[in-house]
């Protein structure tokens, strides 16, 4: 930047590639700054994702095991007469077995407190065994039953023994009994299969996902049956047959918009039309599947059109050249070649539908239902709505159940997306 002294004409600016002038350094710094900001942004996203999964696993992993108590239950004929089955004093039978395990317990005054250690469902485990084999009456059987939520939490360490007794859900006496049981080797912590095999329950230690899994299965099946053929049909028409005019344009704009309509609006549609006007059953997976189909169809249409577009024109021309009709070209040549792409898009659409919650809430799939639906017309919950119910429940045990249910849902989603990615890499051809 130095003017030449004699002429007053500025000298040509001298820049070399190795120049270290402050201007260049400043520009380079900006480069580094921008790159750094980008890295920071990505790190934030990574960190949050890590936090998300870490917190789910931290709270959820305890629900994959369940604290059980092994008892020697004497089936007292006085409490359980054969002729009264399946009714009988099973609660007393089980509580007696508990008291027998705990020599320090005073039978009369502390009976209720001891009963609290066992799950409310423990008596039904015994009942089912006895009903299946009435000859057990009068004998002593060894049976393993779940502990109640409070003691489950205590055993898993979620309840801190150092907190003052008044603020704790279990008092010192009960903790003492529990330690006696642990010392006697009566406590076990097996894998919690009832998380998958039980249906919903008011008691966290008995609640499972069976009803929700079955409901989600029915809803997704209905969704697939409707959205897959209809979506492919629409896509083929738009991509291969539709005349290029205003109507086709309008349809296309419409489908793109439909893909971006908030899901809760589809719920409103389902509530007003399917339930209120057409009188379809509330809470039924059939209605849920129908609603999800409306939402999934645009996704499938868009994916199918992209897959059809990727098939090179030479295939079509060759088939037309040997005398195939236009539909024969599409159904016998183009569609099979586009199928991997279509299926990939469909699976991704179904994965989205599996995680969809809001429309299912509006059609009542958040009901409390303690049995799995045997047809798509029976009331049921779905995985995401079950998560919603559990997340709203006040019991401590439901926090870990909720996280565990989310982990189950995410496993399904990762599995489905994994299949989609695998198919894309394995079968998709590039021309």
């Amino acid at each position, binding site marked *: 930047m130095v003017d030449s002294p004699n002429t007053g004409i500025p000298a040509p600016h001298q820049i070399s590639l190795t120049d270290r002038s402050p201007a260049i350094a400043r520009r380079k710094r900006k480069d580094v700054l921008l790159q750094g900001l*980008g890295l920071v942004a990505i790190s934030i996203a990574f960190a949050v994702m890590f936090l998300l999964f870490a917190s789910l696993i931290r709270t959820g992993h305890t629900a994959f095991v369940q604290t059980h108590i092994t008892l020697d239950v004497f089936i007292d004929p006085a409490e359980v007469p054969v002729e009264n089955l399946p009714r009988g004093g099973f609660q007393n039978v089980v509580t007696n077995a508990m008291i027998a395990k705990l020599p320090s317990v005073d039978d009369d005054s502390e009976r209720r407190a001891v009963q609290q250690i066992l799950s409310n469902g423990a008596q039904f485990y015994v009942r089912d065994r006895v009903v299946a084999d009435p000859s057990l009456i009068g004998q002593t059987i060894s049976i393993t039953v779940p502990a109640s939520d409070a003691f489950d939490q205590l055993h898993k360490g979620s309840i801190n023994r150092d907190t003052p007794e008044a603020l704790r859900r279990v008092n010192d006496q009960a903790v003492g009994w529990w330690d006696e049981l642990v010392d006697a080797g009566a406590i076990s912590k097996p894998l919690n299969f009832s998380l998958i095999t039980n249906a919903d329950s008011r008691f966290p230690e008995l609640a499972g996902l069976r009803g929700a899994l079955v409901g989600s299965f029915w809803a997704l099946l209905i969704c697939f049956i409707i959205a897959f053929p209809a979506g492919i049909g629409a896509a083929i028409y738009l991509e291969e047959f539709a005349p290029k005019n205003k109507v086709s344009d309008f*349809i296309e704009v419409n489908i793109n918009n439909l893909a971006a309509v*908030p899901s809760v609006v589809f719920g*409103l549609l389902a509530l007003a039309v399917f339930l209120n006007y057409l009188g379809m059953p509330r809470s039924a997976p059939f209605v849920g599947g129908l609603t999800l189909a409306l939402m999934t169809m645009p996704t499938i249409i868009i994916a199918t059109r992209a897959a059809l577009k990727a098939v090179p024109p030479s295939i079509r021309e060759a088939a037309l050249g040997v005398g195939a009709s236009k539909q024969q070209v599409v159904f016998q040549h183009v569609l099979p070649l586009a199928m991997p792409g279509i299926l990939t898009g469909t699976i991704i659409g179904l994965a989205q539908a599996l995680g969809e919650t809001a429309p299912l809430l509006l059609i009542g799939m958040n009901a409390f239902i303690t049995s799995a639906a045997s047809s798509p017309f029976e009331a049921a919950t779905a995985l995401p709505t079950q998560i919603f119910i559990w*997340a709203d429940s006040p019991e401590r045990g439901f926090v870990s159940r909720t996280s565990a249910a989310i982990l189950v849902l995410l496993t399904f989603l990762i599995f489905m997306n994994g299949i989609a990615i695998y198919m894309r890499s394995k079968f998709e051809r590039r021309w």
Partner: protein
Amino acid sequence: MILLAFIILFVAAAIGYVMNIRAAQAIRDGGATLHSLVGFHGMFSALVVLVPVFILILVWIALADPLIQRLVAASLPEGTFDGLGTGAIQLIMAEINSLASGRVFGTPEPWKIEAAERLVGYSRTADIALVIVVVIAVAALIAFARRTVTAEFRARQGSEGIILRLMGFCAIFAIFVTVAIVFALAYETSKFFSMVPITEFLFGLNWEPQIPIRADQIAAEGAFGAIPVFLGTFVIASVALIIAIPIGLMTAIYLNEFASRRARSVIKPFLEILSGVPTIVYGFFAILVVAPWLRSTGATLGLDVASNTALAAGGVMGIMLIPFISSFADDALAAVPQSLRDGALALGATRSETMLNVLFPAAIPGIVGGVLLAVSRAIGETMIVVMAAGLIARMTINPLDSVTAVTVQIVTLLIGDTAFDNPKTLSAFALGMMLFIITLGINVLALRIVRKYREIYD
């Protein structure tokens, strides 16, 4: 019975298929030259049977039950419904329906039992009528299709025409869905506005959607001013976008300009995972981790943070939107022609200068389109706010406060049993209508911008 009707239909279609194939083969074996291949004759028959009868059964299912209900309601003794609200009428009909399906509670009045018996009778008649109609229809259609089989018949054109129309119908179905949404929302909304003046809904500053249980109750009138609800959505969406836009854009810039091929192959799938996480999971994350953390941080800083602060819902929603914005911005940047990038670099611009002064401005329309779509998603997002935001509508823009959102109100108003006769339920539809109009407007604008921009470089 409906299942039986479907089974009859499919069996009939198969019969028609086989019959026509046999007939066509006979003609061919007789030495004549068929215009269409044998298979097309079979296909024509199957389609001629399948399509109309399938539609017939669906229409029947849709109309029969409401019609029967109306018939039964009309046949009740004179004056049963006099002076009753729709809720009470629905209750009576529900009782009759449960009587008809065999669930009896207590001792119902004789006229209800009569009505239930009539209901059972009507539905049985309707079921039998359906099967008879289906049988007659398929028989007639098979006969018609069978008569078409001649050497000259253009069966290929016939069946391809039907298939083409079916596919065209599938495409138009998308318009039906939109129209159904608009009509359903508009119908319930108009009912709402006949009870609550539209000006109160649009300009009212008070949202207390309740209905009086007794007529003389204090504060019996609910207030239906939607402004605080929309303000809440605005606050939460703003928090979300303040987080999502910078992080999303920086991620896209890094991916596009600085990341190596290997880094891209790690970061891209990771962002896809992030965008595939269902929103209910984010909602649970907000109440499990983010809200307690914000509260305790606020306490140490001496700030009063509500337990369901807008920051928690908005912040988590922002995380959800990061992959959405970054993928749109990435696509927009990648679509800028290589020549622009090369030109800038050749003039001696650094990579950041190329990005900020050349590529980014060129990609602005696509990026704006993506951001607008993100705005529409933030407004319509439901589960995160249902779980993490508040229920009470407040006129505040302080993100530390608890605010509610449009979608939260829709869901809470409609969860549980709903009667379509009171402003409380119907107000949810009015909110839904507003939500639909706003998001539709934003989407149309965004898609137009994205589309137009693509045309420039294509």
